[in-house]
């Protein structure tokens, strides 16, 4: 706003200067055209010059006055603009604060409503769930009782199976150990026997024992398949 007023004032001043310049120019032109009447015109010119000076002085005065008035007006307008801006800002700030206050109130009210609604819903749901849970539990109690009655028997069976499994493992371990001990004993006895019997038996006794073995095999019909 202030800038527009300044620009208009400047434009008026410029226009005024142009008009005055034009008038001066036009006066000189008229004087030159009316040379013959120069003398008469001299007086007129002097009068006109005087008049022009007066006009000019008055014009300058008026222009100064206009400029002064324009500047004053601009200053006044600027002041008005500042005040207006401050007023607008104040109003906007107040509006925003009012809006915030209102929004906060609305939000608080809506939150309160929502919480209230959910509390109601949860209360209803809670009652419903409690009711269903109770019903479900009542339905399950007989089955649970049956299952609980079966627990001792299941435990007994499981223990029996476990004991049986452990017994089998112990038995297998025992048999394995027996085999190992037997093998060790056999090895010792065998070593002793080889060191004693093997060396102490002479060839003829060995041959006799072989023939006895063959006779025994014959009695056990080991050669029967061959004759068949």
């Amino acid at each position, binding site marked *: 706003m202030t800038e527009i007023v300044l620009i208009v004032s400047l434009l008026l001043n410029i226009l005024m200067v142009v008009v005055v310049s034009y008038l001066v120019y036009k006066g000189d032109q008229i004087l030159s055209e009316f040379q013959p009447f120069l003398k008469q015109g001299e007086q007129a010119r002097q009068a006109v010059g005087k008049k022009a000076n007066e006009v000019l002085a008055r014009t300058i005065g008026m222009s100064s006055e206009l400029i002064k008035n324009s500047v004053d007006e601009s200053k006044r307008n600027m002041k008005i603009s500042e005040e207006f801006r401050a007023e607008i800002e104040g109003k906007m700030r107040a509006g925003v604060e009012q809006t915030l206050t209102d929004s906060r109130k609305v939000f608080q009210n809506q939150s309160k409503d929502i919480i209230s609604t959910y509390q109601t819903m949860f209360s209803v749901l809670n009652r419903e769930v409690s009711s269903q849970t109770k019903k479900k539990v009542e339905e399950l109690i007989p089955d649970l009782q049956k299952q609980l009655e079966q627990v001792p028997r299941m435990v007994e069976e499981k223990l029996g199976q476990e004991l049986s499994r452990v017994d089998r493992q112990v038995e297998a371990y025992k048999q394995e150990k027996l085999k190992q001990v037997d093998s060790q004993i056999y090895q010792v006895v065998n070593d002793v*026997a080889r060191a004693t019997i*093997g060396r102490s038996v002479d060839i003829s006794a060995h*041959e006799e024992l072989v023939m006895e*073995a*063959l006779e025994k*095999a014959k009695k056990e019909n080991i050669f029967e398949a061959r004759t068949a």
Partner: protein
Amino acid sequence: MNQNELFEKFTVELKNKEQLIILLDEIETALQFIYKEGGGQLISARLEGHVSEGFLANLEWAEKNGYVTSELEAQKDFFNQLKKFAQGLPLCKLVLAFSPKPDFLSKISDWVNKEAGKRIILDIYTDENILAGAIIEFEGNYRDLSFGGQLSEVISKRSLI
């Protein structure tokens, strides 16, 4: 004399598996000589020095009596048949605690042949761990009649724990 009786003549002295292997080697040698240089003649003459005297004597006897001729295919057929006969002789596996001398080996062989009623080739193994006696295996039958076996049996029957 039929063919089996002729082949019995070649194998009558066989007591154990080692002797059987030697006979089979001699038969292979004879088969290799059939088509070598000089083929068409009696093969016994060409085998001299390459096989045992016993094998050679039996072969000469067979040639003399017309069982083996100079015809190459007939010679080949004869030796193949003899090989088949020898490979078909039954084996009796014996595990002994000692290495038998030849006379005892003959004694066992004669006894087994007599009791079996036909020629048996002994397959002898030596294992001192059996202590004494013998382990006998014949045509799928197995008997552990050794002292070692009896000892193991006694130990296995005892409840030591």
